[in-house]
């Protein structure tokens, strides 16, 4: 009779089988269309940037945890996601040592110093990018026209840059035609080019279409909530429109959608409650537009999300009403209830 060796544990005795590793793997799958497209646009160097960034992230996480005598958990793939994100929000011509530095900073400074997986208050990839942007402003804002190689002669401005410099959407369209990224310079084909993502920018941020593909995949698997991205994009749309900018152009250009889908939904640096997610997203969208309109940078997604990261812990107080919630009775009401 089996009297010993029985497993004893408190119920429940069954589990879904979903693990952090599977969640991270689904994020990697969701990021793969934009990654492949980035390599298609910018060639082998973009691939090297991605590989070096991921390798640095994984190695620095393993090294840090080994040195600090913690269990090495590269198996959860979270370092791969961080490394991939750092690469995808870098310009295609970024030197390999530079992206490696960014990746290292993301993992060690922004994540492991705070306790590792699930404990980082700020989005690690965005911290990595922010550090690089401040340290190497020239290299981090050099953009190249797709399909032309990464030569000095093929640098070009991002659509947001064109507008920041006083240009119009028509100028953006003219630029597309000049670089044979679009056939006609009219408004709708300019927006279409932006939607497909055939334009200068970071390696992975340009294709709205492929970002949406990844987003739908993550939504279908219920890995991320739709609340944060919807609130962020919706608020950015509204704010752009109120400030007299073209809202559709604002959403299709720059890193807004990439940030909303893959950065603002980072588990540990964003709120866990539905209302918290909505406010978090709305705040990030608003700050993005304010930076774009009034700030010194053409783009504001990085800082918008980082600023909201700082406020996120307070939003965990915005819980939904529990089942059977009874408001604390006032003295008079209490008497009546009796």
């Amino acid at each position, binding site marked *: *009779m*089996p*009297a*010993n060796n*029985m*497993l*004893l*544990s*408190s*119920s*429940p*005795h*069954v*589990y*879904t089988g*979903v*693990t*952090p590793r*599977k*969640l991270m793997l689904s994020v990697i799958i969701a990021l793969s269309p934009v990654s492949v497209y980035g390599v298609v646009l910018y060639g082998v160097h973009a691939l090297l940037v991605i590989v070096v960034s991921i390798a640095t992230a994984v190695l620095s996480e393993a090294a840090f945890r080994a040195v600090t005598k913690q269990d090495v958990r590269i198996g*959860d793939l*979270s370092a791969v996601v961080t490394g991939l994100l750092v690469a995808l929000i870098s310009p295609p011509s970024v030197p390999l040592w530079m992206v490696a530095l960014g990746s290292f900073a993301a993992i060690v400074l922004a994540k492991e110093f705070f*306790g*590792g*997986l*699930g*404990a980082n208050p700020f989005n690690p990839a965005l911290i990595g990018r922010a550090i690089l942007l401040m340290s190497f402003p020239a290299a981090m804002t050099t953009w190249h026209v797709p399909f032309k190689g990464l030569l000095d002669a093929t640098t070009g401005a991002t659509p947001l840059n064109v507008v920041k410099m006083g240009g119009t959407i028509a100028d953006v369209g003219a630029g597309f035609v000049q670089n044979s990224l679009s056939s006609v310079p009219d408004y709708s084909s300019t927006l279409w080019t932006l939607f497909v993502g055939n334009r200068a920018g970071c390696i992975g941020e340009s294709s709205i279409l492929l970002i949406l593909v990844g987003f739908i995949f993550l939504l279908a698997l*219920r*890995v991320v*909530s739709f609340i944060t991205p919807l609130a962020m994009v919706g608020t950015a749309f509204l704010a752009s429109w109120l400030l007299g900018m073209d809202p559709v152009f604002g959403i299709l250009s720059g890193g807004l959608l990439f940030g909303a889908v893959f950065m603002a939904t980072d*588990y*540990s640096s*964003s709120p*866990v*409650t539905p209302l918290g997610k909505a406010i978090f997203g709305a705040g990030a969208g608003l700050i993005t537009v304010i930076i774009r309109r009034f700030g010194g940078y053409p783009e504001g997604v990085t800082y918008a999300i980082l600023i909201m990261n700082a406020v996120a812990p307070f939003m*965990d107080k915005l*819980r*939904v*009403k*529990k*089942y*059977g*919630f*009874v408001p604390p009775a006032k003295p008079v009401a209490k008497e009546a209830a009796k």
Partner: protein
Amino acid sequence: MVTKTFKGGTHPPERKERSASTPIQTLRNVSQVVIPVNQHFGAPIQPLVKVGDQVKRGQKIADADGRMTVPLHASVYGTVKKIEPRMQANNLEGLAIVIEPLPGDEAVFMPTLDPFSCTKEEALARVREAGIIGVGGAGFPAHVKFAPPPNKPIEYVIANAAECEPYLTIDERVMEEHPEDFIDGIAIVMKIVGATKGIVGLEDNKTHLVPGLEKAIAAKRSGMDIRVQLLRTKYPQGGEKMLITAITGREVPSGGLPMDVGCVVSNVNTLLAVSEAFRKGQPVIDTGLTVTGGACETPKNLFVPVGMLVQDLFPDVARYDEKKLKRIVMGGPMMGPAVPSMLVPIQKNTSGVLLMDETEAKAYGEGPCIRCGRCMRACSCRLSPALLNVALKAGDLDEADKIGVMDCIECGTCSFVCPSHIQLVQRFRVGKQLVRAKKQKEAQRAGK
């Protein structure tokens, strides 16, 4: 028919198919029974018999005065061998009466009683004397549940036929094989509490039971408003609060009871016991349960004498693969406790014995919370398990209380969905005790 449900929840693999089509087998011959004296929620009761006494099947063997008590009856005809503390199904030791059967079957039941012509007091006394407790969960005395104070009128009697726990099929089989007794039980409870509506809350993975139940309703109680309500197959659909909300749209207020929203909820086997107590005069001496699991080679649905030891089921009644057996669970896999050996008795509220194999009964260490929010979405009580976990780990009982740890129904959904296998519900169970103890202490201090 509209399928109703509640917000949140999850859908664990059902694994009911192995036992769902097996007819219920009734066991009479056992080598001994170990009947825990206190199987109900409430005040303790005392044995009425001594070692050496001969008892008949159905004879009262323990009782006490007091409202929150339920008597206990001998489940076999035999001799009292021992009265001593024994391991119970909840992993705690408690006083138990050990009876060794004698040949033959001498039974002593109560006289039958017509529930529709007797007074309410007579009916409630009968429910108590029959030793009926809620078999779905904590073992709440049925006669207390059926006697709400006059300022809480009852509108609905809800039969909890969801059977949302994976593996278990005993309720399904009872409704298939004894639909008329089951419906009779609902009608009797409606009469006792004065309810106008009787509803069978059935998960929609058991739609094949609907024609049989409707036929039974038409045959037995055509004059009463009893109907079947289909519910979405989702765990914990059979949680009392979830069931009430799905069916009536009402929410049981925090800290309140179903009667606060005009409902009485009873399990299938409780209702069957009610019918038997009146129609046959039979007290609760049998337990309906499902024996199944990956290591069980012959899944069964059984009626066994209360107090039968799990080990006595094997190998005569069912067989299992000793090499595969890794975990023994009393009840369903979501809420049932795991026990260290087969030397535990089957009690009034035991709904199943699961013999789980290695693939089913995995054990994990806790990982870090990645704040994915799955527990927040799945919590059937709309609590915030991830935040409760943080508060309890930090020892912040006030914050845990504020978030609502005392409202946790311990359904285990949060732990089930957690990718990092964090012991959420396990921590909340402890947390509830700590908060309760703290409040008691504060109340004492305030009293002085």
